[in-house]
């Protein structure tokens, strides 16, 4: 098990020579506090780079740097081989890097079609009479979502009435439609149940197959492993290294996650003392194995009653 050199990616013959994004020893400080350090990884076209880590590991700091919300204070960020500091989210978008945030960056009360085009609305007419091309906007939204396998009865319904998975897919479809080359997905499956997570993973695969580079942030190795091409692990703001899929198994990945190693040590200690402690140890071990899956199936507060009610309706396919 060794950290991957940028050259070693033989399993993807389609990848171009220059990675879309290359991070070299990137770090971020807030005053004297070091939030992130020593992060190196690459994102290539048609590949999925997974960023794994527990809460507070520095995942969100890392994606904020990629998305242009923050700027790195150490290291180099290369976009198409050129060193870059993004000044704003807009600048990152213009470079073809689209981010789908955990809260999905959708406005719940606004209709689906308005959300789909928010910030990049097509217009017709000129001067003071320049107006939204509503007809085209609605039609495009319907078609694009249909391509993703979501058939909406009415693109006029507020996006807040869609299920969590559907909203996630709208956000992904939106990024793909607007010509993203790199798609950053912040915990897209965190708030979803098992079935919905599967749906979202399928869309990630679909986006990858279209030739997009995908950065998939998650704390669930069970979601990351089947779809990822390389895995970068973060712990307490430090990188534990980047591993190609060929060099790491799901078990190893799970073990490295979320203080898994520490839990294991604890389980061993408890097992030695025998008796009821062994019982606890068994449970702990089971928990170590199941840990990410459990958290994933828990409903987060983001899943509002309305959304739940909406998802109770017959699925849109």
């Amino acid at each position: 098990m060794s950290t991957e050199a940028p050259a070693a990616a033989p399993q993807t013959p389609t990848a171009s020579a220059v990675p879309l994004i290359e991070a070299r020893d990137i770090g971020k400080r807030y005053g004297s506090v070091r939030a992130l350090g020593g992060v190196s990884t690459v994102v290539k076209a048609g590949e999925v780079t997974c960023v794994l880590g527990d809460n507070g590991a520095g995942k969100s700091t890392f994606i904020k740097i990629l998305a242009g919300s923050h700027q790195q204070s150490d290291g180099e960020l290369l976009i198409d081989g050129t060193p870059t500091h993004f000044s704003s989210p807009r600048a990152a978008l213009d470079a073809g890097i689209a981010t789908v945030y955990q809260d999905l960056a959708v406005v719940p009360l606004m209709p689906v079609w308005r959300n789909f085009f928010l910030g990049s609305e097509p217009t017709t007419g000129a001067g003071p009479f320049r107006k939204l091309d509503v007809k085209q906007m609605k039609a495009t939204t319907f078609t694009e979502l249909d391509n993703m396998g979501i058939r909406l009865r009415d693109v006029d319904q507020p996006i807040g009435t869609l299920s969590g998975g559907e909203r996630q897919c709208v956000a992904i479809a939106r990024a793909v439609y607007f010509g993203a080359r790199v798609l950053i997905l912040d915990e897209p499956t965190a708030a979803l149940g098992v079935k919905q997570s599967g749906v979202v993973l399928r869309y990630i695969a679909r986006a990858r197959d279209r030739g997009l580079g995908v950065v998939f942030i998650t704390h669930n190795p069970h979601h990351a492993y089947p779809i990822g091409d390389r895995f970068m692990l973060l712990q307490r703001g430090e990188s534990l290294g980047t591993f190609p899929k060929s060099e790491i198994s799901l078990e190893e990945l799970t073990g490295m996650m979320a203080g898994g190693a520490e839990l294991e040590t604890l389980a061993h200690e408890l097992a030695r003392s025998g008796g009821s402690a062994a019982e606890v140890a068994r449970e702990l071990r089971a928990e170590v194995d199941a840990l990410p899956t459990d958290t994933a199936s828990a409903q987060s507060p983001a899943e509002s009653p309305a959304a739940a009610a909406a998802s109770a309706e017959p699925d849109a396919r």
Partner: protein
Amino acid sequence: MTTTDLVTVANRRSLDRSRLKRLFTRPEIGALVAAIAVLVFFSVYTGQFFSLPGAGVWLESASTFGIMAVAVALLMIGGEFDLSSGVMTGFTALIVGVLTTHYGLNIWVAVVIALIVALGVGALNGYLVMKTGLPSFIVTLGTFFVLAGIDLALTKVITGQVSIQGMTQVPLYDSIQPVFGSSVEIGGGNFYVSVLWWVAVTVVATWVLLRTRAGNWIFAVGGAQTAARQIGVPVLKTKIGLFMTTAGAGWLVGMISLFRTSTVQANTGVGQEFIYIICAVVGGCLLTGGFGSAIGAALGALIYGMTFQGITFAQWDTNWLRTFLGAMLLGAVFLNHWVRIRAGGGSR
């Protein structure tokens, strides 16, 4: 935004297919029904309310509230309040009054200067709110008091009085007065040009809100500001634009009031800002932002104007005026709310 709002909105939207049903999911439909109810009530109850002279009175009363309510509604949809909107009407009128009657400036130039100053104050409001991250409620309360103080102190210092006198003697007064303060007589009723301004402002605001990029951004910054920023909506620009719009509407109402009465007092407009907010809320705006309509706000102002003048037409003891006003407004809001729920859930 609360979950209840979303549920309400979600219910309203669900399973609606026919055109009629869709009409009933508009945010302003409740206000429309309430406005019709108020109109029918006073028309039946009093003799002169439903006549051209009567309509002239309550339309004029509603018009100035309406212009402000529409602008305030846009701002509220964008998730902010402007408590300086009331005093802005007096502030701009005083600028024109002082510049023309005391310094002898050309009246057209003075009117333009007042507009520029108003837009500047609006931009400052927006900039302060966005840069400090403080609630607009507090920031604009500050502007409100500052402007109210300036209105009184500066007017008194400069003119030695607390109201502008002698506007009609200002050269070119007659050339600009018709723009803001003229009226036409139709069937014995006087209809002021402010009613046309009100309609125009409502039409433009509705167009902007529903058919332009700016409108999309207004809904977005009010509904989910962080999300809007993440997706590339120019939040700062949108919000500052909204505050400037409110200030600009304040200028328009200031001019209407100045050229309607040919005078303005140092205390003009103080306390009116809440009425604008009330009209916007009666018209279907959520206090939490992200939802509402310009037409609704205009209807809210119509309800207010009709009720206010209708009570006088009804010749009720005006010691009770505020009680009646409050009861009627509550009734209108309940009816509004009831219609919205009904319209949404009716198909289930």
